Structures are given as structure tokens and as C-alpha cells.
């Protein structure tokens, strides 16, 4: 029975998921977060209802994760805080993907001077401590517009992907892929899009997922430190308020307010880890071990 590449891919996905049910859990978790990001804000009014008489309310059906220092429902905060952060992270991930893939492919394909210059720059981007750079940039740039944030994050983080794509391209070259395609008289565009890209796609996919997660945490971190204006609501703002303002570390009443964003981060990480575990096997079946 012959299967098309696509069919074989989906069959690989299914086999990998079935082999470890925990991976299905990962898919469910990720789907949950994506759903929260897309549809979450539709369930709540723009301005979440607050009630200063009901701060740090006991856990109840109305407030399953208690309320914050203004009496706003914590669950609502967690859900509505997903979209902004996720949007920026996905956009930044796309920037990283574009720049990293282009630089890596070009360097690996052309080699020579272009390669060494690009890799020097990539090494530079890898070496510069990203987070300190980010908070220094907050002093000069207004990160209020989401696309600016996305652009800066994406441009800080492309070095690793570029390196990975380049080394993969080089190893394909060593295995004679490129020479063979050239020998057949295929145009460069065909070689890059039809021969190289499909072979580096696994790296890009795994890397993209990790980069997006990293960018989510970088934003949460910035808000948590309080170097970005705390005017929106998201997990980082919640953590900032919980840790530095409302004394959630001391008062047990406020504990759910602290634990909710932490829990969200842990859950997201778990989802990503389980999916990356599955991706590695889908793309590299040799890892399968009896």
C-alpha cells in the first residue's frame, strides 16, 4: 500500500500519540490554551466586574479560583489574560521562524563569506543575554503596541534556529542532496523549497513551538518584574501583584491568586513538553525504543 507523504505524516502522528497516551493529554492542554486565547475574551465583558467587598473570596462555584485584591474573579483573569500574551508570542515566533530559517538556509546553501558573516551575527544574537537586553529596551521603546513587542522578541531569538537550520542544510549537502539536484538541472528555487525546506521543517516546527513558549514566558516575566505598564491584565501582571503588592506569599487567603497564574504556566509547559516529546518521535522515528 502506497501512502502519500501527507498521509504517512498523519499516520506517524497518530502512531506517536497512541504509543504514549500522555501525548494526547499534551494535545488537549494545547487545544485548551488556544481556545482560551481565541474565545476566552468573548465570555467576559471588556471590563471584568469587580467588588472591593469581596476580595480574596473563599473558593466557591462563582469564584472557583477565588478573587483578587479588587474582588475580580481570578479564573476570568487567567482566561482573558491568555490572548494578548499568546498573540504576541505567536507573532514573535513567526518572525523568528522567517528570519532564522532564511538565514540558516542561505548560510548553509551558499556557504563561504555569507555563511561566516551570518553565523557570526547568529552567534552574537545567541550570546547577548536576551532578557537583560529586553528590559533595557523597555526604557527606550514603548511596548504598548503588540507588534513592536513581537518584532523585538522575534529578532532577539532567531540565532538558535538559524544555527540548527544551517547545520541541517550542511548535512543534507554532505549527503549529496544539493549536488544531485543541481546535477539534474533543477533550479535553485526548486532545490530550496522542494528539497531543503521539507527536510528542515521538523527542526523548524519543534523550534517554533519552543520559541513561542519562550516568548510567552519572556512577556510574563517582563510584566512580572513591572518594567512594562501594568494596564492590561495577564499572568505576569497577576504575579506581580500577588508577589510584590498583595503579599500573597504571606497571606494564605491570597494564595489562589498567586497559584492560578503559576498553575497556568505549569500546565502550558506540560502541554508543550508532551507535544515536543511526540514531535521528536514523529520526525525522528529512530528514537523509538522498545
Amino acid at each position, binding site marked *: 500500500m502506497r501512502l502519500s507523504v501527507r498521509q504517512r505524516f498523519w499516520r506517524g502522528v497518530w502512531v506517536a500519540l497512541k504509543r504514549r497516551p500522555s501525548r494526547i493529554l499534551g494535545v488537549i492542554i494545547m487545544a485548551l490554551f488556544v481556545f482560551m486565547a481565541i474565545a476566552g475574551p468573548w465570555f467576559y465583558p471588556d471590563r471584568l466586574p469587580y467588588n472591593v467587598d469581596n476580595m480574596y473570596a473563599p473558593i466557591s462555584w462563582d469564584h472557583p479560583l477565588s478573587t483578587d485584591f479588587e474582588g475580580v474573579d481570578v479564573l476570568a483573569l487567567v482566561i482573558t489574560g491568555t490572548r494578548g500574551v499568546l498573540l504576541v508570542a505567536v507573532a514573535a515566533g513567526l518572525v523568528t521562524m522567517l528570519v532564522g530559517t532564511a538565514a540558516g538556509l542561505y548560510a548553509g546553501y551558499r556557504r563561504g563569506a555569507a555563511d561566516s558573516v551570518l553565523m557570526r551575527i547568529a552567534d552574537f544574537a545567541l550570546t547577548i543575554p536576551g532578557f537583560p537586553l529586553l528590559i533595557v529596551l523597555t526604557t527606550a521603546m514603548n511596548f504598548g503596541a503588540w507588534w513592536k513587542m513581537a518584532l523585538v522578541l522575534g529578532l532577539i531569538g532567531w540565532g538558535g534556529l538559524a544555527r540548527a537550520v544551517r547545520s541541517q542544510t550542511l548535512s543534507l549537502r554532505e549527503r549529496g542532496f544539493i549536488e544531485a539536484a543541481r546535477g539534474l538541472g533543477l533550479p535553485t528555487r526548486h532545490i530550496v523549497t522542494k528539497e531543503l525546506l521539507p527536510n528542515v521543517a521538523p527542526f523548524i516546527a519543534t523550534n517554533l513551538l519552543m520559541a513561542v513558549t519562550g516568548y510567552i514566558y519572556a512577556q510574563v516575566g517582563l510584566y512580572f518584574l513591572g518594567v512594562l505598564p501594568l494596564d492590561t491584565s495577564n499572568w505576569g501582571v497577576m504575579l506581580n501583584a500577588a508577589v510584590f503588592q498583595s503579599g500573597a*506569599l504571606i497571606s494564605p487567603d491570597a494564595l489562589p491568586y498567586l497559584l492560578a497564574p503559576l498553575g497556568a504556566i505549569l500546565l502550558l509547559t506540560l502541554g508543550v513538553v508532551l507535544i*515536543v516529546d511526540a514531535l521528536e518521535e514523529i520526525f525522528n522515528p529512530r528514537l523509538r525504543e*522498545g
Partner: protein
Amino acid sequence: MRGFLRRLAGHLTRGLVMIWVVVTFTFFLIRLMPGDPVQVQYEKLIAQGMSPDQAASATAVTYGFVPHGPVWKQYLEYLSGLIRLDLGVSVDSQGVAVADRVFGAMPWTVLLVLSGILVSFLVGVVLGVVAALKRSTAVGHSLSIAGSLLHGVPPFVIAIVLAAVFTRRYRWFPSGGQYNGDEVAPGFYYDFIGDVAYHAFLPAAAFAIASYGGWLLAMRSSVASVLGDDFLLAAELRGLTRMTRFRYLARNAILPLFTVLAISFGLVFGGSIFIERIFNYPGLGMLLFASIGARDFSMMSGAFLMITAAVIVANILADLLYTFIDPRVRRQA
């Protein structure tokens, strides 16, 4: 030896170029900042009754360059100050040299980062070997998942949890500072060192927990790939003892981790901002954070520069270490 020196020279050149780029970046960042803080300070000093000349030289002391005249001249002045390790003077606390504060904070961060990396490296490598050797069992799989999870969780989450549990809920550890100045005076004696360790324990533990998962994963895949190498089968067929073969495996598997080590420093130093902030530990990260809050831009660029320089130096050291351990690189000259 000649190969080693050439490598070292290459590293130093690249390191210097990187530092130069960073310096240039901070110089223009401060100048291009909305509301030009240099100009603001200059005008404030004049408003306080200084003559323009006095104000200009006072501003120059703060930022390391005179706020007037052509940009290239300001830039050169800034650079020549840096070469003399003159990072300017703090805007926020007048009269305090940035270099003094930065170099004062540096060792504390290095203490945290190094002890954290060392512990996490050891633990991660050992568990990584176990995870690789037992990879088809439940133990191996859960070790890998736990490693990935801790590797994936941002360090501030770990720091918050540790701080919440061990400094607030149970007050087993101090809630801030490098040592208790009321009880011990700095010096090289048991009580002081003990107190420093007591204060550094939790933040260093946060570093260690946040990064050991990465080592575990790296070691696991490295061991798995070395296990497939022919020389281990050859060693088995020559009747080398299990212990000897294990040493062969471990040494070959650990080697690639040194290249990862070089990359990890940037991340770890970046994490110091969170960890020092959460544990109120006055190191470089805390200094950088505080200077941003106080709009103390000369301090900010000094601290950022020093963090970058530390990462670059650590990178170079890790690479040289690698060169030293791997005969394939060492004997190429």
C-alpha cells in the same frame, strides 16, 4: 600550544567586537531615548543655577560623555572612558561611581550563577545518564518528562515557589541580602562564609533547579548517541570491565555538553534578574532592575555591559575548557 593561542586570540577578538557592539548600542540607546535623559540632566543642572560649562562637565561625569558637540566626539569620549574602566557616575545616587557598584555587585551574581550551574550540571549529568540507560523503563521516562518540565518552566516560577515556601511560609531562610551585616563582618572566616552560604542557598538552588533539567536532557541524548558508537562494543568485546566501559561512555557523552555550557551562560545570567529580584539578593541583576526603575541610565548601561561581558568571558572559558578536554581539537595545530 600554538593552536591553543590562536584559538584564544580569535575568542578575544570576537569578544571585544561584541563588547564594542554592545557599548555602541547602549550609547545610542541612551541618546535616542524619549526625552533624552542626558539633555534633561543638563538642563536641570542649569536650572539649579550652574553655568553651562559646569553643567556640561557634571553631565559628562555622569554619562561618560559631554552632551554637546558632534555625536562622534561624544562617542569617542565615551569609549575612551570605558577603556579606563570609567563607566560614569550614578544618576540616582549622585557621586557613586557606576564601576564601583557594578564591580561590587558582580561577585555575588557570579557566586550564585557558578554554584547554581555547578550543582545543576552534576545532578543533571548523573540523572541524564540514568535516564538514557533506563530509557525504555518508567523510571527513565518519568525522569525525562520531569527534566523537560523543569527545563521548560521559566526560572521565575521556581524562584517564586521557593521564596514562598522557604522564606515566607516556613522562615527557614532569610528573605534577602548577601549576609547579615548586623551579625557578621566581611572576612575570611567560618561564620561569615557560613552566613554568605546561608543567604545564597535558596537563590543558588533556584538557579540549579531551573537549569538542571536542561543538562539532564542534553546528557540523555548524548549518552544515547554514544551508546550506539562502535568503540563501546569493541571495549566490551575486549573484555574491559563494566566500570571502565562506563567511564569511556561518560567521558565521551559529557564532552558535547561543554558547548551547551557556553550557550547556557547567557540564559542563566538573564535569569539572575528574576532570581535576585525575588530573593532580594543584591547582585548585578538586581542592580540592573533597580537602575531601570529609578531611570538611572548610566547605572543601567554599566550593569548591562557587565552582564554581557560576564557572559562573553564565561563563553570563552567554556570553549577553552572544551579545547583542553577534547584531544581531537587539542592536537590540531
